[in-house]
């Protein structure tokens, strides 16, 4: 029977990432190396301390992960490549946490990197309009979901725009965010930006980024010994699912996947952790297109079905709200390079739980949730907690 994982005796030893963006001049390997070194420095370790590595990316060729790891050293450690589309980073994190929790490793590293701007420069994706399994622009298939929501619940483009404005403004305060506006972004500004796929305007869509991020997990006693006095953050539980068949499933073409995938995955994770959505202080979700974030308020259990618009209107998912979402700007502002995106969520979760998220700190945050979908076909939900 499928269940969420509850982790034991594993904590976050170190986190590191490079600011996401269109980093044309930075070689991919240097981005990966720098993210890895930042995490090792944060952990007080070198690669010699790491027992196992998990590397992830979407848009690069086979075995590129080994090349990246070699930038940090050649110690003979086992390395496994992980690819789960947009959810790659969180799944690498889950595997590293599991490797330590299972007792097979004392220290495990998740390192992810990608260069989406190379794909964009080649003019890929979207040119496949005239193919059966058309790789249409991702904004299109998420817009299909937005249109359906508007039809069923009367959601307005302004409500989607309010989520976008919130995330852009959160991004302004996050040093690792691609989009750091120099002014307060308004609903009007979001609505006035270029229409991509109705009702989604360009400011409601994530950028295609370059980036790298790394998280090191270790036995909790080792983490305490290496970084005494620092607040310990540990992964609490994780779940990972793929689609379940239901009438209306679309098999041909890129799709969002069934909405129940997120609610089922969240339920498994909450159950494994022995907590509920009411216990979560800060959340991260796949807001590649902001209508998704609205849906995930409900599907992750933060409000009843049909109440997500109310949550937006009341500002409950922004600064000072009941459940702040995507405090680093989310995919929309902080950016979405693919592989490393999930590790950026963990990076921000750990900063929040350590109390080190300057300018965007959720006061007293003890429990963080990180959710991603990948290719519309898999979903992962992960919980991290601050240990007193």
């Amino acid at each position, binding site marked *: 029977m499928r269940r969420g994982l509850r982790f034991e005796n594993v904590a976050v030893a170190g986190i590191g990432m490079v600011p996401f963006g269109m980093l044309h001049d930075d070689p991919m390997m240097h981005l990966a190396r720098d993210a890895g070194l930042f995490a090792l420095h944060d952990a007080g370790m070198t690669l010699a301390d790491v027992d196992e590595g998990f590397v992830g990316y979407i848009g690069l060729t086979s075995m590129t992960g080994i090349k990246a790891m070699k930038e940090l050293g050649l110690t003979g450690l086992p390395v496994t490549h992980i690819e789960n589309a947009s959810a790659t980073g969180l799944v690498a994190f889950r595997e590293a946490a599991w490797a330590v929790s299972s007792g097979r490793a004392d220290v495990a590293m998740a390192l992810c990197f990608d260069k989406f*701007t190379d*794909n*964009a*420069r080649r*003019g*890929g*994706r*979207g*040119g496949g*309009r*005239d*193919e*059966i399994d*058309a790789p*249409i*622009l*991702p*904004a*299109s*298939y998420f*817009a*299909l*979901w*937005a*249109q*359906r929501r508007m*039809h069923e619940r009367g959601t307005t483009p302004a409500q989607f725009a309010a989520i976008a404005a919130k995330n852009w403004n959160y991004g302004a305060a996050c040093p690792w965010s691609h989009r750091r506006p120099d002014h307060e972004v308004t609903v009007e500004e979001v609505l006035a930006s*270029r*229409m*991509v*796929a*109705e*009702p*989604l305007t*360009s400011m409601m869509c994530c950028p*295609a980024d370059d980036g790298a991020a790394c998280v090191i997990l270790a036995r909790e006693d080792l983490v305490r010994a290496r970084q005494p006095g620092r607040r310990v953050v540990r992964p609490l539980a994780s779940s990972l699912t793929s689609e379940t*068949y239901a*009438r*209306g*499933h*679309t*098999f*041909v*073409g890129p*799709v969002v996947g069934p909405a129940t995938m997120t609610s089922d995955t969240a339920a498994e994770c909450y159950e494994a952790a022995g907590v509920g959505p009411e216990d979560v202080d800060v959340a991260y979700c796949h807001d590649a297109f902001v209508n998704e974030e609205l849906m995930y308020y409900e599907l992750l259990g933060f409000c009843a079905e049909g109440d997500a618009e109310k949550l937006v209107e009341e500002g409950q998912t922004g600064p000072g709200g009941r459940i702040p979402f995507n405090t680093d700007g989310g995919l929309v502002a902080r950016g979405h390079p693919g592989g490393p995106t999930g590790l950026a969520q963990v990076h921000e979760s750990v900063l929040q739980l350590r109390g080190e998220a300057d300018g965007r700190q959720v006061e007293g945050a003890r429990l963080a949730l990180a959710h991603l979908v990948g290719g519309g076909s898999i979903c992962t939900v992960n919980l991290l907690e601050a240990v007193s």
Partner: protein
Amino acid sequence: MARVPIEEGYFRIPDDTGEPPRLLGSKCPACGEVFFPRRLVCAQCLHEGCDDVELSTRGRLWTWTYCHVPLFGAKDADVPGYGVGQVDLPEGPRVQSILSATADELEIGMELEIDLETLRENRDGDEVVIYRFRPVGAPSAGAA
């Protein structure tokens, strides 16, 4: 001039050019669920061995969008936008497809019918065609 599908196994092209194409689906003999495209193993009950069926030529629009920026990262691409939709066929499958319609012609729940669009001519001089959905009664895009 013959018409050939852009990819085999998804739809049948009728000999009569006035007839709409037929999507090729599968029906599970055990539980009765119908799928597009064809598959061997039933996605609902896991029975092995589905029967070949042809699907209806009309369906209802479940949701749609109109994409104004067709190319990923190519901001100045000189290409037109296009409609995308999901169409519920009476047998059950929900089919995602490019729509031959402008944004103001589209409404959730409306009836659409399948049509063929000619994409290009291949080296043998055959017309390469793909299926699209369009509002019932709208002019066919086929005679390109």
